[in-house]
């Protein structure tokens, strides 16, 4: 019985649910694009945590493989997303998403 398994599964679920909820609320209420970005990462990591927990609980490694994929994709996403954000900031001197409403109608 390793350290991971000594904590009951419910705790992991609860923690990652809280992390995910924090992420969602952050995305919904914050206006700064970078913080929204960070909140999205938070949500991804909440899922990662859950994956790892279940993987250990079931003794099946494939869940952890998914986590690696998610991390890789998240990294790529951050790279592209931050690049877009920098371009936006260069052009409009702001990262407030309320100003970025040109794409409508």
């Amino acid at each position: 019985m390793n350290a991971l398994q000594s904590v009951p599964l419910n705790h992991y679920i609860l923690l990652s649910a809280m992390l995910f909820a924090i992420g969602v609320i952050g995305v919904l209420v914050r206006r700064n694009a970078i913080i929204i970005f960070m909140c999205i990462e938070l949500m991804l990591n909440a899922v990662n945590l859950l994956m790892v927990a279940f993987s250990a609980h079931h003794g099946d490694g494939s869940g952890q493989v998914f986590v690696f994929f998610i991390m890789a994709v998240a990294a790529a996403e951050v790279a592209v997303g931050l690049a877009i954000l920098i371009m936006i900031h260069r052009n409009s001197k702001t990262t407030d998403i309320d100003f970025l409403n040109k794409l409508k109608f």
Partner: protein
Amino acid sequence: MKELVWLVPLFPLIGFLIIGLFKNNFSKKLAGTIASGAILASFTVSLGIFIELLSGAEKTFTYTLFDWITSGDFSVAIAFLVDPLSSIMLLIITGVGFLIHLYSIGYMHDDEGYAKFFSYLNLFVFFMLLLVLGNNYLLMFAGWEGVGLASYLLIGFWFKNQSYNDAAKKAFIVNRIGDLGFVLGIILIFITFGSINYADVFGSAMSHPSNEPVIVLITLLLFVGAMGKSAQIPLYTWLPDAMAGPTPVSALIHAATMVTAGVYMIARSNVLYSLSPTTLTIVAIVGAVTAVFAATIGILQNDIKKVLAYSTVSQLGYMFLAMGVGAFTGGIFHLATHAFFKALLFLGAGSVIHAMGGEQDIRKMGGLKKYLPITYMTFLIGTIAISGIPPFSGFFSKDEILAHAFAANPLLWILGIAGSIMTAFYMFRLFYLTFSGTFRGTEHQKHHLHESPSTMTIPLIVLAVLAALAGFIGVPEVLGGSHLLEHFLDPVFEDSKLILFTNHLSHSTEYMLMGTAVGILILVILFARNKYFTNNEIPKSDEDKKSVFANLVYNKYYVDEIYDAIIVKPLDFLSGVFFKFFELKGIDSIVNSTGKLVIGLSDTFRRLQTGHVGFYIFMMVISIVAILFFNLI
């Protein structure tokens, strides 16, 4: 000779084509000669066929040219039927037709549309021959509508005048109403009997019971067609207006031939009608009522051609009365005699109008006897003939009809006698006002009064002889004759005689009826003579006050106005309402608003795209939650 029957309609067709196509290169004389020559050639062939039928044993003969329409079990050919009935019609059409062509050479001499006129006349004769020669209903219908076209063209011959065009259009459209009935009748014949050839239809009809609903319907539909073409109530209003055409046209088309097509059609379908006593009763009533009704209008008309027009309507009524009481021979007999005396009267009227320089109002005529002696004499013969005084032709034919009417129902006889009293009155009124007394026209007209040229008077004389003597082909048994016409037509009507039960009058009754009729007629004529010859009464001018009833009759019972108010106006109104309201505001705007609805909806929904990223994310989260929520439940 019978094998040459195709030549009969061919000559006028060729005449029409030659004159119609090359009329600009022709002299007037040539056009008239070609047209008259074509009809004369047809007449010669017709006469040959007639003589052959008289002598030969074979009474019917069909000449097939080629298949016309074939569709499934429906098949109809362009084929000509020669039998006693069609050969009599051929003689009338080509004979009277030729005389009228001849007359037109003189009458239309100064008209610029001279060649066109003759081409139309030839076209008319062609279609009329097609009508009587067809061996099936559809070919009859082709001729039927064709004569309608020719009549349209000829009524509106002077097309610069829009009121003439109105008359032409009215004639065509009213005829079309009847024609629709005719077409539906033909279709029903096809559905019922599987064929529309006379021989097949009548052959298989014989096995049907009397008064079978479908045959009643067929005969009624056909009769609607006859009402249109032969100007019976309620579709008669076009015929008086049709007098807008040149007078020879009125004589040929609107008196002698075309308008009798309906009578011919019923005579041709006599088997069907005999199987449907209900329709026969209706035909008889319509005929009798028309005879009286039109005669009453004739009494007060002052236009020489209008009087004759109403008289034609009335005489056609007699023919239908004859058909209705099963006196098919009598109807055809009257058709023939009427063709002679009415053509004579119209041509006489034409001669008068010609002399008067176009004046048609009898109130402005008078005393023409000494200026137009030949016209006067021939017109007198025509008048006596139409009034039914023995031994002129009208007496025999009308007497036969009235005798049959009496046998069928004395009430019909009374109507018939009433009609013939009025006929005698208005005809003699017309005659005296025109020819006796003193001239009432202008000095200018008086100066120009002259007898018509010989091309016009010769047809008058020939027709006068026919009108006087034609009755002798149908002298009834009671008067010691043998009724040649009846024997000749027997093969056509023998089937009907088997089906139809007719009362036979005793000789004494027939003598009595004849005596009564002639007695009353002579009294009426004397009355008219007293009024218009001895006392020289002139009808009041239009401005004078008349009694309410006289006004009603003078204005033809306002039937035209009534039709206008209940049919023409509402239809026009309806078309306006349909276009402006239903079409533009209704259907079209429904279609357009479907388009507008799509545009409107898209306008509403695109506003959801606010551009606020926060809003998008919010919607996304809400949607995900909703999806999860509904999926978990």
